[in-house]
């Protein structure tokens, strides 16, 4: 725990800044003077950090062989409650090694972060307190040195704010990107001046970010170092270069933060105070960077006294939020981006304070405003980051934290076309509904797609694809994923899910307007679910026809009558016409018929008159052939249609044809029967020996000509 030391209150005493007492662990790296050995850890204090801990720290804070000393590096170690701030000071000792080379002595100091809970300190304050510290250790027990107790001045926001310039603000904002920042051209600055600059930069970030900040007054361009911010003479290829005293090219990621700092430049002491109060351990992850922006955005809109619950409640009231949304719309329309970001900052704060939870009723009101003010459509004047931020805020307030299908439909209804960046923003909301997730994944495509659909199960995918109103992207994305899963897993889950949802035939018919593609897609799905050669059981599951008993009897009788080709006839007579009825084009049906290897279509019996030319010719001559006298009662009546099949003469003719055909068939059958019977009775069978006749048997009834000659048999 820290021991805050208050300012002296004695009359006549010189005003002394408040100080905080810190317990500091330490280690020393160097060489034994006059030796030929290399650098190594010579001693360390006893405590939480061991020799190995300090060795690991030394390994992480590589800065390169120094050109000039002293060199001061700030850093961190540990995590959570074990987080420590580090200060590393490297100086030339007045000693040399065996080869006469100067020895650099490096002192590592570690301050537990928890000691700063009540009072913060600056890096410069730490440096002054530690630089002259006497590190005492017994050579016989070099790892049992006494930890230090030092008094460090409490961080002075006014002092730090007074030294903020545009370079410091730009560098601080640049740290809120992925960039490693290297400052060049600072050779004229002393190491202490460089440390003071680093201190100012750190003061423009939430204090908790120091738990992951590394910086140095010098690094070598040829050392593989991970120091986030440093002065250097040569910049590694991948680093972001900042020329000392020049304008900083702040990356996009840090732009919003930079704009905030510029906006608040007249209130920097208060801003530094606000940021110093933020002790929450933060890294430089995208989330932490966003949180830093939120924290900074609170400046000026947060009630001065957070304990004033009533004021906070007013600030967070739905009416205030609605007002802020309308103001955002106004600024968006007027192009006043400065005030737009300020209003967004307020909304960010509300989201953070209410942890993203808003009631359905208030969200309905917010949605109306969002739609009316076209807040999601954005504006051409908004650059990418600001537009993303605005959408993020609006979505979380009006549609978050869980994006429902209704919310999605509401958003879709506002826009003619859903832009990609809006889709991306939507994915940042929670999307537990598989339909919603597939809706976004299908439209985003690319690398985001697998990430979005990965956690959906086969059941989720099938159910989402089957849900109405059908969405082409949802169906297609689901089918693609199901294809992959089915072929990969082959565990029957896909088949079971498909059986529950009619094998998605309706959805597929919706998503694929072309008949041929429909059938192919469905067949691919069936292959994924049942394999390339499904057995009869699978077929029954795919086509679960439930026939009535009499229908089954009829089908059995008809199939028996038709013989082995009854299946083809069934497809031809029942399936293909049904496809036609479903408005499949003739071309598609022909193609399907070819796929099914059905030679020709079977005529379909309908109530319509069959086109039988010879019958029509006889009843209604179309040619100028000699007219036959037709009785009046046989003439067609206007408005009625004659049904040729009911023509008594035709029926009569057909009747006699059938009788004749039947008699002939019967006679032929009887002849064959009696012939077979007589052969069997004579014991010859068809071949005389009970075997079926074969060609050779017939030939052997007489010798071949050649055989007779060769055998010397009698000639005729």
């Amino acid at each position: 725990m820290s021991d805050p030391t208050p300012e002296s209150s004695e009359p006549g005493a010189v005003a002394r800044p408040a100080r905080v007492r810190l317990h500091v662990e330490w280690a020393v790296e160097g060489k034994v003077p006059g030796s030929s050995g290399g650098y190594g850890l010579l001693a360390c204090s006893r405590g939480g950090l061991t020799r190995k801990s300090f060795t690991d720290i030394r390994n992480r804070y590589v800065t390169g062989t120094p050109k000039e000393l002293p060199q001061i590096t700030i850093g961190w170690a540990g995590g959570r409650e074990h987080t420590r701030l580090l200060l590393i000071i490297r100086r030339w000792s007045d000693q040399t090694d065996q080869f006469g080379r100067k020895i650099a002595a490096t002192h590592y100091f570690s301050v537990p972060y928890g000691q700063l809970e009540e009072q913060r300190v600056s890096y410069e304050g730490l440096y002054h307190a530690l630089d002259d510290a006497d590190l005492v250790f017994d050579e016989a027990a070099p790892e049992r040195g006494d930890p230090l107790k030092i008094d460090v001045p409490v961080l002075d926001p006014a002092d730090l704010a007074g030294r903020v310039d545009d370079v410091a603000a730009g560098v601080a904002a640049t740290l809120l990107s992925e960039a490693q920042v290297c400052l060049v051209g600072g050779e004229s600055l002393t190491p202490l001046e460089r440390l003071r600059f680093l201190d100012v930069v750190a003061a423009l970030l939430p204090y908790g970010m120091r738990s992951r900040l590394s910086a140095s007054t010098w690094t070598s361009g040829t050392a593989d170092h991970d120091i986030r911010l440093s002065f250097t003479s040569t910049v590694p290829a991948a680093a972001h270069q900042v020329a000392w005293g020049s304008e900083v090219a702040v990356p996009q990621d840090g732009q919003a933060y930079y704009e905030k700092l510029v906006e608040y430049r007249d209130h920097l002491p208060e801003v530094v105070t606000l940021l110093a109060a933020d002790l929450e351990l933060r890294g430089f992850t995208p989330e932490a960077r966003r949180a830093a922006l939120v924290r900074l955005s609170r400046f000026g809109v947060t009630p001065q006294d957070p304990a004033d619950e009533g004021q906070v409640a007013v600030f967070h009231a739905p009416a205030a939020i609605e007002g802020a949304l309308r103001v955002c719309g106004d600024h968006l329309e007027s192009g006043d981006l400065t005030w737009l970001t300020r209003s967004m900052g307020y909304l960010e704060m509300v989201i953070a304070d209410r942890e993203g939870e808003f009631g359905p009723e208030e969200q309905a009101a917010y949605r109306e405003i969002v739609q009316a003010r076209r807040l999601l459509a954005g504006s051409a004047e908004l650059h990418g980051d600001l537009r993303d931020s605005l959408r993020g805020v609006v979505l979380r307030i009006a549609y978050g934290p869980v994006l429902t299908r209704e919310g999605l439909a509401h958003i879709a209804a506002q826009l003619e076309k859903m832009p990609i960046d809006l889709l991306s923003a939507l994915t940042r909301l929670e999307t537990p509904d598989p339909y919603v997730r597939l809706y976004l994944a299908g439209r985003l495509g690319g690398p985001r797609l697998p990430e979005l659909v990965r956690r959906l199960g086969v059941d989720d995918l099938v159910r989402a694809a089957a849900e109405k109103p059908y969405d082409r992207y949802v169906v297609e994305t689901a089918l693609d994923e199901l294809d992959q899963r089915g072929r990969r897993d082959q565990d029957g889950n896909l088949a079971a899910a498909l059986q529950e949802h009619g094998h998605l035939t309706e959805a597929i018919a919706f998503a694929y307007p072309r008949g041929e593609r429909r059938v192919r897609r469905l067949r691919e799905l069936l292959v994924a679910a049942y394999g390339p050669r499904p057995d009869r059981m699978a077929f029954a599951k795919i086509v679960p026809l439930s026939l009535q008993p009499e229908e089954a009897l009829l089908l059995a009788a008809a199939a028996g009558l038709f013989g082995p080709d009854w299946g083809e006839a069934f497809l031809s007579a029942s399936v293909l016409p049904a496809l036609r009825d479903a408005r499949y084009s003739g071309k598609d049906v022909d193609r399907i018929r070819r796929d099914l290897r059905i030679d020709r279509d079977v005529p379909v019996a309908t109530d319509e008159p069959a086109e039988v030319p010879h019958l029509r010719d006889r009843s209604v001559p179309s040619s100028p052939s000699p007219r036959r006298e037709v009785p009046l009662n046989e003439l067609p009546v206007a408005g009625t249609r004659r049904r040729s099949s009911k023509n008594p003469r035709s029926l009569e003719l057909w009747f006699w044809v059938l009788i004749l055909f039947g008699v002939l068939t019967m006679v032929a059958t009887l002849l064959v029967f009696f012939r077979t019977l007589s052969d069997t009775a004579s014991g010859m069978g068809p071949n005389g020996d009970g075997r079926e006749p074969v060609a050779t048997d017939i030939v052997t009834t007489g010798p071949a000509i050649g055989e007779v000659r060769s055998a010397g048999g009698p000639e005729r």
Partner: protein
Amino acid sequence: MSNPTFERPEHSIAMWGAPGSGKTTMLAALSLALIERDGPWKLVGADANATSVLLEKSAALDRQEFPLATIDIEKFRWLLVGSSPQQDRRFGGWRGRSRDTRAPKIGLNMIDPPGQVYAGGAAQHASLLQSLEESRGIIYLFDPTQEYIAGDAFDYLHGALLQLASQMLAKENETSGRLPHYLAVCITKFDDLRVLKTATKLNVLTQDPSDPHEFPTVEDADAPTLFRELCEISARGSARRVLNALERFFHKDRLKFFVTSSIGFYLKPGTAVFDPRDFQNMVRLSPEAGRDQDSEKGAQYRIRGQARPINVCEPVIWLAERLLAERQEARSGR
């Protein structure tokens, strides 16, 4: 130089040696040595960082100061640049088409670690092993004067060598049983009286007739003999193991010995010829040098006259050429 190339292959060459064996000084002398040496090659930085390192190191030596001891592993990319060959029309066909006349360039990714990282428990040891594994050329520095005093060369070789071998030779596709690197073994500090005397005793000293300074040299063929003899003076008697280990872990045909000195011999101002009575170029600064060496502060050394590196660029050029040839052979499928 024969076999100039128009490609720009990258070769990583790592320095290996105990603390104080002269790794950084050798790198500092390399550029100067190439300038003084007859031949087309010169050394340039491949980027601003590498150029800066080159300038800083050369400048220190030029100021007759030793470069600072390396504290962290340094990596920089240098280029060995040759001269553009004359246009040659003899083989250009009847149209007189000339050959490519671009200057040959060989990229060198130099890795300069502090000596202590070769001790097994050093903090940057893992990083060093990775660098060694990625490199295909190693310049190994053996300092006989240091071996005479401390006898620790084997300590800074054995642990790292075993770990490197463990990483590389344990791989399934490794069948040769030896490390694939080309190894230039440099016997450093040839300018030291004791080393020169040993060479004299062995009768391996020669003189290059074309050398205007008439400096003594040891031909590369005799370098192994000198190395073996110097191993015998090891303070702890472990130097012989250095040689055995190198021959055991590396291919013999990829091993070559050089006798080197980064600062060279001293030449009196106004004279141009080696003086066998006064040639030592490294001196102690303090007049009370004898006492200082044992004091807590240690000794102060500096270079007495102009640095005239001996055999410093030869190991680098040999490695670069071997690596280049190997790559060309691999490409041609041989």
